[in-house]
């Protein structure tokens, strides 16, 4: 176990007994009403809503004003550079630990990171974190009574290749309960943190697994009110990535927002 050394820790997010009083059915009704409004409005959305009350923690944490449109200035047209100094090649394999093999379904997640013009995002940092096969994070705020796996921390990093490709070997995470409402369960997911070529492309998101029965019940997933848009977070099973007697493969491609830099032939090298 790691991260147990912060003795100032005070669990401010642990709520009282009545915080999770709403039922799943109440949540479903709220989410259905928002979906209906979205369909009737007829204006396509591609990102999550910041103001999405079924995700209770968002209520006091979303801006109420529309964002201001800004023309990117020089610093915003670049992103920090990461290199071999920052990331060791072994960090992309989350199943390598000192003690032994982690428990669970061994999987590989591979894909490409492109910008909004289809240009590969090269040599850039990708970070992931996730629960173990039992749905438990190695984090002291995670009090879910599922077992910690001593051979799995669930943290990985890599740099993309020249074609924008990334690949991680890991364990399929389990779903886990949370306190949004009564009997609330998150669909199994892997958190992804991504940089582009411009700082304006910075994003953090979650990758999901195909066919999860919890999708319809989860307000974080449903905060992306457009069905096509939220399906972009679901990986595909890819048998060409699976390896004989070793692991199952998933493919998930990521598109960042457009770059606003003026690209030269030399820069883009598409």
């Amino acid at each position, binding site marked *: 176990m790691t*991260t147990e050394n912060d003795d100032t820790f*005070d669990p*401010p997010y642990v709520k009282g007994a009545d915080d999770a009083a709403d039922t799943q059915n109440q949540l479903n009704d709220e989410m259905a009403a928002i979906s209906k409004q979205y369909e009737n409005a007829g204006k396509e959305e591609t*990102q*999550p809503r910041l103001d999405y009350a079924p*995700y209770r*923690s*968002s*209520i*006091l*944490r*979303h*801006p109420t*004003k529309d*964002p*201001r*449109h*800004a*023309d*990117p*200035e*020089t*610093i*915003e047209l*670049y992103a*920090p*550079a*990461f290199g071999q*100094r*920052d*990331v060791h090649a072994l960090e992309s394999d989350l199943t390598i630990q000192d003690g032994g093999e982690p428990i669970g379904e061994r999987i590989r997640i591979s894909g490409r990171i*492109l910008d*909004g013009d*289809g240009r590969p995002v090269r040599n850039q940092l990708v970070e992931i*974190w996730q*629960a173990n096969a039992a749905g438990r*994070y190695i*984090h002291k705020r*995670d009090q879910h009574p599922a077992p910690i796996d001593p051979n799995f921390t*669930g*943290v990985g990093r890599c740099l993309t290749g020249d074609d924008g490709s990334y690949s991680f070997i890991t364990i399929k995470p389990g779903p886990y309960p949370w306190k949004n409402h009564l009997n609330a369960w998150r669909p199994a997911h892997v*958190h992804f943190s991504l940089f582009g070529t411009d*700082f*304006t492309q*910075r*994003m*953090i*998101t*979650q990758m999901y697994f195909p066919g999860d029965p919890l999708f319809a019940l989860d307000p974080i*997933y449903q*905060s*992306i009110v457009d069905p096509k*848009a*939220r399906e*972009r977070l679901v990986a595909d099973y890819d048998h060409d990535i699976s390896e004989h007697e070793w692991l199952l493969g998933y493919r998930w491609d*990521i*598109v960042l*927002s*457009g*770059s606003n830099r003026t690209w030269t032939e030399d820069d883009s090298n598409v």
Partner: protein
Amino acid sequence: MSENTERLVPTPGQTIGPFYGYALPYEGGEFLVDRSHPNAVRLHGTVYDGHGTPVPDSMLEIWQADENGQVSQEPGSLKRDGYTFTGFGRVAVDNVGHYDFTTVNPGPTEDGKAPFICLTVFARGLLNRLFTRVYLPEDTDALANDPLLNSLSEAERASMIAERQADGSLRFDVHLQGDDETVFLAYPGI
């Protein structure tokens, strides 16, 4: 992709959630320069929610030019060598929503431009990241000519300009919601 004229639709973002603490923050993340750097500046503040309550599970990133307005493209932000200015920092707020970076004042990237630090905000409960700018308060001529600041009301403008404290620190609070709500930015292509 034979047709490059058609833009791809960006993948949606999602909240950072509550459990990033063991994954994303790293040792030295808040030190763009060492405290002993002769021009070291403390950039600090608190992240608040719509009730004015500090948010204890937020993570901030900054990205900035160096003192001469040069944009670093040097690696080494995750494994700092103590000498190279990479321009990038990351820190998780503490239990009372407070953050600290140690950096230098950015120079203007072009003559006459108002220098600023890019700031990105992530938090549990925040369904997608937010962007803003931390302007330095000193160059009032440059601030007066800044197109973004000029499009804002007085209060909004003030929310993007850091306060220089007596010890030289920059104070910049983030208000996710409410009367003092920070101005957040949308860029073309998002």
